[in-house]
């Protein structure tokens, strides 16, 4: 299939401040242009009533391969991404073994190519074996396809190692993504420390554990000139620290996850491990601060922290169950419900945080926009369809969602990657999408 015409959709491309109804043309794996381009389409997709935007990019997912294929594989995770409307993901290196060498990064790239679903970009480890002792071979990781560095799953606890990482990574102009948390303050914690943890008798993880490392790393980014990205920001004070760092000109960005702007620590009253994640669900005041940060662009990126865990691991006693929830297939509906429907953000503002801003973070220059010649990655969203979240329908291997049974509106209708229709809910195109 070479030429695709996507007809009559609402075309939203924040990179070009574009929001108009019209046709989008793709050919030979590239964006051809808008309007009429004088080619005969091989495939016409009617997008009337739909939103058509550059393929969504999720800068924070865990695909568990190699090492924990019972939770997820690169193929299943990349398929779940497409079902959620995400055409590119950046996968975290906390696999077994960790993605800390060129060979390991190339394995991810190769498995993703075999799977032929969403694009998968490996994020390399900051430290060898993610032990937080010595720098990994960052340059060779880049050569193997790594688009950023992180020890995510755990923070880079050592201030001196973090400083070296921010300094050294400047030679590639690649970002260091940090899971900000002072480990000795969260040891033994299960949930946010506060009134709720006190009444439930559960171990607490204080907001200050995040705030302290955010403050430290912003200063380290400032003195090194490195690029710092704050992952899954969750506290009011951290949002304020990032806001203030940006004001000073520090190269710092931040992402927020749907669960941190839709749920609070009161959910733990159910003792359901699907509400156990790291960073933990916080208070109403923190949720409001995250939303305020999304509104004023202190937080310029939306990401899922998709963290699949097999049922037998997650259905354990709360302190033994692992942290994390799946997120790829609920990203759009939860964002619509909690950001767009209440009027916090518009569609173009949401799409900007999931396309061009994410592409800039990872330096994916050919992605995140409809500029002619860009990669033909497109997401088509049905913004009106009403449905109920049912984890048994997930494409992910895991089912650990806190949003089970939520009545939501809007979902991905189709996803095109490199000019190929790889996912579609339309039965007429389903076969083409499976091919």
């Amino acid at each position, binding site marked *: 299939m070479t030429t695709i015409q996507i007809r009559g959709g609402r075309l939203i491309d924040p990179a070009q401040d574009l929001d108009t109804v019209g046709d989008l043309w793709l050919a030979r794996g590239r964006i051809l242009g808008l309007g009429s381009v004088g080619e005969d389409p091989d495939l016409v997709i009617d997008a009337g009533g739909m939103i058509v935007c550059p393929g969504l990019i999720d800068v924070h997912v865990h695909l568990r391969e190699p090492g924990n294929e019972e939770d997820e594989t690169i193929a299943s995770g990349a398929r779940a991404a497409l079902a959620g409307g995400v055409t590119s993901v950046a996968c975290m290196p906390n696999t077994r073994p960790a993605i800390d060498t060129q060979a390991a990064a190339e394995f991810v790239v190769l498995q993703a190519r075999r799977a032929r679903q969403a694009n998968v970009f490996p994020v390399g480890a900051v430290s060898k074996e993610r032990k937080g002792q010595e720098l990994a071979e960052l340059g060779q990781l880049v050569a193997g396809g790594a688009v950023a560095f992180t020890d995510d799953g755990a923070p880079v606890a050592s201030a001196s190692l973090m400083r070296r990482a921010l300094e050294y990574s400047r030679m590639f102009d690649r970002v260091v993504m940090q899971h900000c948390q002072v480990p000795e303050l969260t*040891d*033994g914690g299960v949930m946010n420390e*506060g*009134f709720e943890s*006190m*009444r*439930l*008798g*559960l171990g607490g993880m204080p907001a200050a554990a995040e705030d302290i490392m955010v403050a430290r790393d912003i200063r380290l980014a400032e003195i090194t000139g490195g690029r710092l990205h704050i992952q899954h920001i969750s506290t009011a004070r951290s949002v304020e620290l990032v806001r203030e760092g940006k004001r000073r000109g520090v190269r710092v960005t931040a992402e927020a996850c749907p669960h941190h702007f839709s749920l609070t620590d009161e959910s733990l009253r*159910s*003792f359901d491990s699907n509400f156990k994640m790291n960073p933990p669900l916080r208070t109403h005041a923190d949720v409001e601060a995250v939303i305020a940060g999304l509104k004023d662009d202190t937080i310029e990126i939306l990401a899922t922290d998709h963290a699949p865990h097999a049922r*037998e691991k997650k*259905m*354990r*006693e*709360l*302190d*033994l169950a692992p942290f994390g929830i799946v997120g790829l297939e609920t990203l759009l509906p939860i964002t619509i419900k909690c950001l767009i429907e209440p009027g916090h953000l518009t569609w173009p503002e949401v799409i900007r945080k999931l396309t061009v801003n994410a592409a800039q973070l990872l330096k994916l220059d050919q992605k995140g926009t409809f500029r002619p010649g860009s990669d033909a990655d497109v997401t088509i969203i049905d913004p009106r369809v009403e449905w109920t979240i049912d984890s048994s329908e997930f494409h992910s291997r895991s089912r650990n969602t806190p949003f089970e049974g939520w009545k939501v509106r809007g979902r991905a209708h189709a996803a095109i990657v490199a000019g190929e229709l790889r996912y579609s809910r339309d039965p007429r195109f389903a076969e083409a999408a499976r091919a």
Partner: protein
Amino acid sequence: MERVQLGERPRSRPAETSWHGPHLLGLEDLSRAEIESILDQADALARELAASRKKLLDLQGRVVFNLFFENSTRTRTSFSLASKRLSADTQDFSPGGSSLSKGESFIDTAKNLEAMGADILVVRHPTPGTPRLLSQNVGCAIVNAGDGAHEHPTQALLDLLTIRRAKGRIEGLTVGLLGDIAHSRVARSNIWGLLKLGARVILCGPPTLVPRGWERLACEVAYHLDEVLPRCDVINVLRIQFERQQNALFPSVGEYSHFYMMTQERIKAARPDLLMLAPGPINRGVELTPEVADGPHSAILDQVANGLAVRMAVLSMLCRGLDASRAGRAAPGGG
């Protein structure tokens, strides 16, 4: 014959406000009327126990498992004896040496016990919320015998019963909870029970053991025992949970005792009718001196006796609830 006779046992509360399960997970979930109905039943049983050694038949044909994932001697023994005095078939099940150490999940373990015909599972577990998760995954009635630092409802009920039998009331009393509030399930269950029954609650201990936030529930927080003890009608001396502390939360046992140990000197400064409880096991010489533990203010052994009555009341009332819910299960959605 005997069943009829037992059916005539006085029940001082009308059935509609009376607690009937389906589980006992914590006192936070119960209303004042429900808590009082359990205390009334336990009070009646305590009198009956004092008067006669005869077994009751409330749980005849019932199977009660004590599923203890954490060490316990007195609570498990008390539950066992309570089941036996009510004529249940009772069996202890502890994970040591069982398939749990081979990796079986706690839910699978409970389902196995259910398949053996368990009507009631008495569960102790080091993780908060585990009894609640079991209640959602098995069909038996669950009694929480202590889940981590969350709740220990029968302990609080026996504390309440001990206070009520000694003082004649709970409403309006000032009750101090002394020591390790942070790690104590006994403290949490006591707080809910005491607040619901109208007592004034003072939490006293070092700030590292008394988490911030209880003020929001109208508890008074104090760090100096000598300042608040004279106002207390009751003082409940909690055990230092050495096994639950990951870090040293106070400089030394000596310093702790200096500030918080119940001594004769402190008793002299307290009200003459001070009632002193201690859920045990007590650390003599740390939380209280031997002469105080064995002294006239101490209700420690009354608590143990009342514990048996409370657990019998809970098991018996749960069984009545089981009967009612099984009778109603024929209706759609009744399960």
